[in-house]
């Protein structure tokens, strides 16, 4: 049974508790690694399906422009 230093109520409390636990439990780093690697894999798969291989850059730039991530230089 895990003994908590305090009962978390807010998101910030959970962040604090996790950071405290991270100092003691190295296994949490492995969980974090899994989370990050899965996120990257999912993103790669999503955009590769959306834009294809042949015109990836062209389609990606169009997508980014429409969302305001690529802005004209003198906007």
């Amino acid at each position, binding site marked *: 049974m895990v003994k908590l230093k305090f009962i978390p109520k807010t998101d910030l409390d959970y962040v*604090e508790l996790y950071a405290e636990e*991270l100092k003691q439990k190295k296994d*949490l780093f*492995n969980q*974090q690694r899994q989370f990050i690697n899965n996120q990257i*894999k999912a993103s790669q798969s999503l955009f590769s399906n959306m834009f294809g291989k042949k015109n990836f850059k062209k389609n990606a730039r169009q997508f980014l422009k429409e969302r305001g991530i690529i802005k004209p230089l003198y906007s």
Partner: protein
Amino acid sequence: MKGYTLQNDTIVIKRELTELDVFVKDFLRALKKHCDYLIVSGFVSISTGRVRATEDIDILIKTMPKEIFEKLFLDLIDKGFWCYQGDNFEEIYAYVHEMQNIRFAKEGQMFPNMEMVFINEEKKAKHYEFTHPQKIRIKDFEFKIPPLEFEILYKEIILAGKKDMEDAKHLRVFFKDILDLNKFNECKKIILEDKKW
């Protein structure tokens, strides 16, 4: 137990590299041949254990002459990166000249991406963190981040969004044993002075 050690002022974290670490490491390998840098913001917290998603890694770089940027740009392209803003370095240099951010991702991928933020000495706070780097090492991946006290305060005072406050809390708790009150005061002064402008 602290979750990290300090070796000659370098923070060493014992964990395996993530795909995100490998991406940043590849990018820095090409970039470091041409210019200095500082990794800031979300990746600082994530690389030290914070669990949250991210799409971009912010990297501070000093503005540079066109001929150096040309070599850097071509080297990054050669190492398999593509630039969101375009394929022609002449066109992209206009962004550098105007100090507008540009982004690079791996060929055939959209995320993660490195967002280059150009700075000069007029940007006092950014110039301060750039010239007072903290080294951090995970396995054979070593990189530079701002002083922890600066990063925490910048997130709390300037950025101040929900995820920024959470990132700052993570750093405050995880690095509690090495945070320095005098450094906090020094950094706070610089950040508040910069905020006025």
